[in-house]
């Protein structure tokens, strides 16, 4: 092999109280797809932020084309030819798709932006990514998370990059879209562009990766592994230091009982129509569908966060007042929303207060909080979910993505719901934590909780659920036991539905 495009040696990055990177080495060759693996909080995002000029490393060197460089500002990295898709979708909501794509390098003449050029360029990029339906002139704030991910991808492509960093790009994408993404990656790598790819889905590593570097606790534990030859168990062992059975727990046996949750003819104009289903205590019902099929809207409407145009929701046979989250929570419904940053976490607040946010009444007498009880309960949950780093007073902003997700789960575990709605519960969650979350769902169902799961990973929906609803065309196309379906069958139903 010739000179590597990029070589990072012994990179150290400390945050107040945390050593995020404790000496990491990374070497990337032109034209390769280099996968970065590691548990939540291993330091992947921090590493790529160092590479992107967002964080200045405390120690270590970065060589680009064999020359040592210092990156003081994101612009410096971009000038070298590094384009980055960040894990937290850092788009500006008030600007349009085209404006976001070209932010920082707007096509302009004498400072006047050439908006037609930008729109045309954006449209081309979106088409190349297979998403013509996203109009360059819509405001990003109105797009779904998946569409935002596409926009962010288009933005990375809009720079003439020699290295594209992708931090968990597939987390919000469904199978078809991941395929499109891979096609684009193959296209750019064929032209000699290198890609650093981060994902928690090991099968993706195998499908697209050339070589793998594994991080654990801020250190490189293995580098340059062959992506196809290294076994899954081996990778998991490197990441976690132990062996984990990466399988779903047995499906719970559901006793015949009155449904805990009943959804009757629920509709919202323009979003979904006539959704009807039951969930019995201890049962898991999955919602499968393509991105944008309205699954998030359905669970948010059940939760009262959106007001249904028609239909109603019953918990244990009693109707829940429509359009009121407080009423839904009081009735025993909980929701782990899709976007933890925007919808779930108070980023500036401590972990403890995020965890107890829905249960404040329990820790208070006459409105006065019992801080010790609150801290104790939060600590216990953080232990049982293995949230890292420890410390209930830590600001939730400083946690890695996967750990943030666990905090949101902890909130509803603490409350002890009758019905739990999980929207993309394993988004950005590592293998270890993933199996913990699966086990957790199992534990909840054993306690008689009714669970609704939305996930873009069809195997996950199938593996976790007793019954599956397949959505297409903004309505339920199929309902049936999960055992009778496999990934292809589900996709078939979806495609037929969309064709109809």
């Amino acid at each position, binding site marked *: 092999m010739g000179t590597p495009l990029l070589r990072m040696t012994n990179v150290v990055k400390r945050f107040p109280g945390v050593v995020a990177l404790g000496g990491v080495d990374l070497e990337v060759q032109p034209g390769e797809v280099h996968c970065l693996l590691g548990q939540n909080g291993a330091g992947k995002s921090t590493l790529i932020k160092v590479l*992107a000029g*967002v964080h200045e490393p405390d120690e270590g060197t970065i060589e680009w084309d064999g020359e040592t460089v210092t990156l003081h*500002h*994101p*612009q410096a990295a*971009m000038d070298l030819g590094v384009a*980055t898709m*960040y894990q937290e979708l*850092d*788009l*500006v*909501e*008030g*600007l349009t798709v085209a*404006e976001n794509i070209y*932010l*920082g*390098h*707007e096509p*302009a003449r004498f*400072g*006047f*932006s050439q*908006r037609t050029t930008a729109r045309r360029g954006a449209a081309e990029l979106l088409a190349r990514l297979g998403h013509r339906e996203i109009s360059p*002139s*819509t*405001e990003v704030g*109105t797009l779904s998370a998946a569409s935002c991910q596409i926009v962010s991808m288009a*933005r990375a492509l809009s720079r003439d990059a020699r290295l594209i960093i992708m931090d968990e790009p597939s987390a919000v994408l469904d199978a078809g879209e991941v395929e499109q993404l891979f096609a684009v990656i193959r296209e750019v790598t064929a032209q000699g562009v290198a890609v650093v790819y981060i994902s928690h889905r090991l099968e993706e590593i195998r499908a697209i990766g050339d070589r793998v570097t594994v991080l654990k606790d801020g250190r490189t534990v293995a580098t340059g592994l062959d992506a196809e030859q290294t076994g899954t168990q081996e990778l998991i062992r490197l990441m976690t230091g132990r062996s984990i059975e990466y399988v779903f727990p047995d499906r719970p046996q559901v006793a015949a009982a009155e449904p805990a949750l009943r959804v009757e003819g629920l509709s919202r104009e323009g979003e979904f129509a006539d959704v009807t289903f039951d969930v019995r205590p201890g049962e898991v019902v999955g919602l499968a569908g393509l991105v944008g099929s309205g699954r998030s809207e359905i669970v948010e409407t059940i939760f009262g966060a959106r007001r249904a145009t028609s239909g109603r929701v019953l918990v244990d046979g009693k109707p829940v007042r429509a359009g009121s989250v407080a009423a839904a929570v009081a009735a025993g419904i909980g929701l782990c929303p899709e976007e933890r940053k925007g919808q779930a976490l108070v980023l500036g607040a401590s972990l403890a207060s995020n965890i107890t946010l829905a249960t404040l009444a329990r820790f208070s007498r006459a409105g006065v909080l019992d801080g010790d009880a609150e801290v104790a309960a939060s600590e216990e949950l953080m232990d049982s979910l293995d949230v890292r780093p420890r410390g209930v007073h830590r600001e939730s902003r400083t946690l890695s993505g996967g750990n943030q997700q666990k905090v949101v789960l902890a909130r509803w575990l603490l409350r002890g719901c009758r019905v739990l709605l999980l929207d993309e519960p394993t988004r950005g969650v590592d293998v270890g934590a993933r199996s913990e979350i699966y086990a957790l769902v199992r534990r909840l169902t054993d306690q008689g909780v009714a669970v609704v799961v939305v996930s873009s990973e069809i195997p996950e929906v199938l593996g976790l659920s007793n019954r599956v609803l397949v959505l297409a065309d903004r309505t339920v196309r199929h309902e049936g036991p999960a055992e009778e379906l496999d990934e292809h069958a589900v996709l078939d139903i979806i495609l037929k539905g969309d064709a109809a």
Partner: protein
Amino acid sequence: MSADVTKADQTPPAAGSGTAPEEPKGGPAVGGAAARNAGAITGLLSGPAGRSAGLVLALVLLVVVGILTGGDRFASPENALTILRLGSVIGVVSVGMTFVISGGGIDLSVGAIVALSSVWATTVATQTMAANSHWIVMVFAAVAVGAGCGLVNGVLVAYGRIAPFIVTLAMLAAARGLAEIIAKRRTQIVRERGFIEFFGGSVLGVPVLVIMFALVAVIGWVLLNRTTFGRRTLAIGGNPEAARLAGIRVQRHTMYLYALLGVACGIAAVMLMARTTTGTSTHGQLYELDAIAAVVIGGTLLSGGRGTVVGTVLGVLIFTTLTNVFTLNNLDTSTQAVAKGAIIVAAVLLQQRVSRTRST
């Protein structure tokens, strides 16, 4: 905005249903319908007219009230020019303020900067220099002082990382104090007749001050909507972290925003000097509230990320017309204040109603 587009695409506009002109969004080309109705500020209204429909409606209502109660005294061209002339000074400041607020900041020191600029430009020293060369020296002095104060604000906010509220509050105290010290609390009379004649004059019947305001508004609109500077301003206001990750020099840009507003204050000081023929430390009192109110009522988000110069201009016109109508009706100040409060709330509710009916 995107929402009502879809609406317009899907259902045909109900004939005669809208009080506000129905107007599909697109390029500047299709905005003509609303613009023709609104008259003078045609060019500006095209894009964000939809968002401003409620404001236009409020202004129209106000004009109707003015005509009903004031008759010819209100509807005369002179009165229109009076309103515009009175609105022009605070208008220039408000356009500058639109940038700072869109960029996620705030500036409480505008009035004090106007005062200091006007004082500095009318000291004996400056006026002597002007008398020996040209009155343009006074203009330069005012704008330079404004820019300087703005720059200090900008540096402290961007590089000192102090909350803009605090920085500009400090500047408010300091600049006005300095103005008082320099002017020794006297009202300094502008002795340069050339200056007064130029800025007090008219071109084709339109006062120079009004022309200046229009120019500033047009430049502001172009800058915000048609340049990379404007895009970046909105990006920084909307999500400073994202803007930084996109390679924008957020600090430097923020500094520019305050300097820009400082320049606007300098220009406003020149206009005020022409209007009152004086420079004094009491100029520009409560401009901060007036300007922020005009900007926010216009539809610019106080939290940043969304800004509209057209809305700001409409906001200024609404407030100025309101005062004018009040005076024509000989209303006492207390009643004016109560009415003003009620009208502000009503205008915003109206605006919301209009944009909601348009979007659902």
